[in-house]
């Protein structure tokens, strides 16, 4: 690369540091010499290395320094030497020796160990411990102990420079004698390119940041802009974001709105009447006995229409049906629960419709609840996409048409219907889409045409009502490669900040 060009790209920190590198290599030295902060030097070195101006070399080193005790002994003398000094050639009791030496009990114990190992003392146990000095002990008092020699060195010391390893190892075992610290030594050396750059004229003044001042005065005209390395990465920033699920739901809402559907909304807390009985779910249906519905305390107030529903259950009423032929329980229908499906909104919507409102189409995207423990594929609260078409001319082909269109927009080419059973629809069907990657059919939810026993009491007359309730969690989770469904609602801020947007 052109040296001049390279020079122009140097950051002021690099510019300031570079001249020092030709004389010094070590990071600490560079910090001292340049007067920059350590972090600034580190950054500059990193950038210079990226530009191949220098080579960085990191070496790990163990640095040895003196501990609290050894620093003190350096002044007062080694305790074992003091201890040895007060001994006689006759055995003497430990208490007497300790008193004379003015050492602590702990120090004395350490001294006895050290001196015994070196064979400088002799010990006998009569009435308590008695100690005397040996001949070699007496001789040793004339010379410096290896420990004393060791302590005389200049610290801190590179571990590799220690000659008397035996003494060093001994001292390391003693309390607060030597401290060993691991150091990273960073050194920088100029490359061939670096030498050329360092030799170039670095003094040219460049504009680092364009300022209002410069713009006002026009001072920028005489100067050169420092060129950036536009190819390197910059620190990440995060803006505000919608929740992943919101993005997907907005997309789904748009599809139904575009197809001419009106949005429905309603309560999570519902009566069994609206959630189940209005939908002709028999009161003794196995699903109602199952413990997967959340119940609340208290009794719900029933709308006037409840007696019509009761008759429909018991005898079919005016619907042309035989009904369930049992006695309808008011107590059962008054129970308060968390809605088990968004179909409750469809029932409530139909109950408000008049003949002149038809044809009408509605949708809802809302939470439904199941009394389950959360695990990787179950949540106690999840989203359902609900839709109804109330149209005197509606038929099963239309149902397939609407759902196929919807799933096309969700990215699934092939849609299949299979027979199924729900108490409130007839025909009932299961909707599968063909997964383009996994190459298999995936079940996404139920659909059908509401039974006359549902429609007639609520609407006042018979009319085909196409209906569906589809689970979206699978599709949404899959878009973000989420395999544990709980991750969708974990509110992990990193995930929410960094996830890709929903585009279909």
């Amino acid at each position, binding site marked *: 690369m052109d040296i001049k060009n390279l020079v122009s790209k140097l950051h002021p920190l690099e510019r300031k540091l570079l001249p020092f590198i030709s004389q010094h290599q070590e990071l600490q030295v560079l910090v001292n010499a340049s007067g920059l902060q350590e972090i600034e030097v580190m950054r500059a070195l990193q950038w210079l290395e990226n530009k191949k101006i220098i080579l960085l070399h990191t070496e790990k080193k163990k640095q040895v320094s003196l501990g609290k005790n050894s620093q003190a002994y350096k002044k007062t003398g080694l305790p074992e030497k003091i201890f040895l000094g007060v001994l006689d050639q006759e055995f003497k009791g430990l208490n007497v020796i300790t008193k004379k030496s003015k050492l602590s009990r702990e120090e004395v114990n350490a001294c006895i160990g050290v001196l015994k190992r070196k064979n400088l003392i002799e010990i006998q146990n009569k009435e308590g411990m008695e100690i005397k000095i040996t001949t070699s002990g007496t001789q040793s008092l004339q010379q410096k102990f290896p420990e004393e020699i060791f302590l005389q060195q200049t610290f801190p010391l590179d571990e590799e420079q220690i000659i008397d390893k035996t003494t060093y190892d001994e001292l390391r075992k003693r309390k607060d004698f030597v401290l060993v610290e691991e150091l990273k030594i960073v050194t920088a050396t100029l490359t061939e390119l670096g030498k050329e750059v360092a030799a170039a004229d670095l003094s040219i003044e460049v504009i680092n940041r364009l300022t209002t001042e410069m713009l006002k005065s026009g001072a920028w005209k005489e100067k050169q802009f420092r060129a950036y390395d536009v190819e390197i990465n910059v620190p990440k920033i995060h803006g505000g974001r919608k929740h992943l*699920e919101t993005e997907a739901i907005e997309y789904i809402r748009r599809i139904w709105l575009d197809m001419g559907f009106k949005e429905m909304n309603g309560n999570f807390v519902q009566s069994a009447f609206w959630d189940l009985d209005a939908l002709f779910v028999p009161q003794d249906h196995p699903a109602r006995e199952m413990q997967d519905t959340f119940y609340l305390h208290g009794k719900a107030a029933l709308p006037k229409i409840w007696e019509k529903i009761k008759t429909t259950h018991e005898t079919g009423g005016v619907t042309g049906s035989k009904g369930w032929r049992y006695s309808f329980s008011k107590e059962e229908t008054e129970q308060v629960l968390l809605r088990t499906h968004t179909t409750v909104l469809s029932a409530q919507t139909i109950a408000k419709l008049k003949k002149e409102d038809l044809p009408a189409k509605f949708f809802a995207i809302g939470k439904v609840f199941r009394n389950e423990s959360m695990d990787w594929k179950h949540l106690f609260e999840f989203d359902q996409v609900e839709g109804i078409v109330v149209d005197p001319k509606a038929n099963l082909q239309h149902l397939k048409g609407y759902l196929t269109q919807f799933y096309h927009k969700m990215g699934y080419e092939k849609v299949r219907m299979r027979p199924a059973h729900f108490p409130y629809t007839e025909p009932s069907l299961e909707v599968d889409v063909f997964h383009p990657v996994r190459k298999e059919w995936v079940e996404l939810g139920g659909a059908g045409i509401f039974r006359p026993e549902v429609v007639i009491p609520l609407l006042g007359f018979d009319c085909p009502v196409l209906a569906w309730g589809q689970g979206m969690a699978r599709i949404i989770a899959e878009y973000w490669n989420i395999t544990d469904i709980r991750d969708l609602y974990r509110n992990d*801020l990193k995930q929410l900040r960094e996830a890709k947007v929903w585009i279909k």
Partner: protein
Amino acid sequence: MPTVTLHVSTIEKMLGKKIPLDELKDRISMLGTDLEKIEGDEIHVEIFPNRPDLLSEQGLGRALQSFLNIKTGLRHYTALKSNYQVIVDPSVTMRPYTACAVVKKMTFTDERIRELMQIQEKLATTHGRNRKKSAYGIYPLEPINFPIHYIAKDPATVKFKPLGFTEAVTASDISELHPKGKAYAHLTKNWKKYPFFIDSKDKVMCMLPFTNSEETGKVTPQTKNVFIECSGIDLDNVTKALNIITTMLADMGGEIHCVEVIYPDKTITTPDFTPAKMNLEPSYVNSTLGLHLTATEVQHYLARMGFGTEGKTTLIPAYRTDIIHPIDLVEDIAIAYGYENIQGEIPNVATIGDEEPLEKIKNKIRDILIGLGLLEVKNVHLIAEEDSIKTMGHEKGIPLKNAISEYNQLRPSMLPSLLKTINQNQHHEYPQNIFELGRTFHPNKNKETGVEEIDRLAVMLCHETTDFTHIRQICDALFASLGLPFTVKEVEHPSFISGRAGEIILNKKKIGLLGEIHPQVLTNWQLTIPVTFFEIDVAEIVELKKINH
């Protein structure tokens, strides 16, 4: 849902031809049963609760035979006349109905006996609603001395040996000693007497709804002829159960004989295979399915589902329990026609799409807050009781009666949810400025369910230098963008630092709270970084925006 195991070999024998496994699998799903898995020769099929007649290999095989166009139309079953009698005593008020039959010339193997027991269990679980509506018993015929008495007795006065026992016990101990007694004791609460089948020589055949007797109620490979009773609280239910069981045994090669059931006020003969009749207009079929079938085609498809026809009248097999309205026939025609042959079509009908005003406002709020750099989070609406205690000073959550996890309340405020979010994200980068649009729940006697649901916005700022000014700025920016003036009135609230909390007032109504979260609350949530917060009702904004338009 209960499952049935089909054997490919049995199916092939019934169909009279080999059928590729893939095709068989596909046909089973398209018949309206759910294929669960295939293991060697065995196909496991889930049966929907509306079709108890498919709970046996014979029943499902019969349906497949018709569906695959091998043997179509109404099957004729005959119940031969006989002198067998069951006398129903007026005392059986707790389970007043029974329907009975005798089946002869059966061949039972150990395997088949096991199957029979399983089918009985599955039928009692689904059709009998866990024996609540009805339960069924099958007995070797020979030891029985007719007429049989169906009678309720004080169990302390009856002794018999229940199925699986070696000793006779007093009947009042069955609910504690016998596994089935324990399992179904809840159905007999407050019963002083229990129904028994007892033969004319005083032999106890069974105690309902628990168990047969070991001596007279055990079918073995030597058994050739059996007596069957289906008893319960609903006559239609027990006769249908009997029809399902007897037609299945007939398909196994049995010969069905009638039983006279003598009630105090009437006598009926069971089983009765006379098909029920239902009128079906082809136009109803066509308008529902969007097809143009002729009357003949309608008859053809009905035959493919095992129905008979006489002109516009459909003859419904006596074992079908689910045909209560002509629409049920329409579904069966659709199944025979093939759901896969239904074409998708979007009709040319103009309707105008429309958003919920609430959703519209919520989306606007989202846009504004995202513009201010906030991150949306979404929490569940249930919280643990402990969460609301930690948050201090809020009304209690609405308890759920039967929650199986620790999340057992509907949240009264958004604050615990957002504190939880911050608590769980302490390892991530700050600032953590988040918001949530969701619901809170409050007791309100004027509401249908006693619960009022309020759509709310909550904003939480969490970083070293967040303070009242900062949260107020977000609030100001939001309301300025919405074009709504609001005021703040100082308030004391245990969740907030005293002197640093205010009520948000819009259109003279208190719509929320704003302030710096109290350090004790933060400590309760193990947070070590300051948090500011506001929470408002969205409904009032929706109302004001409606008026403005």
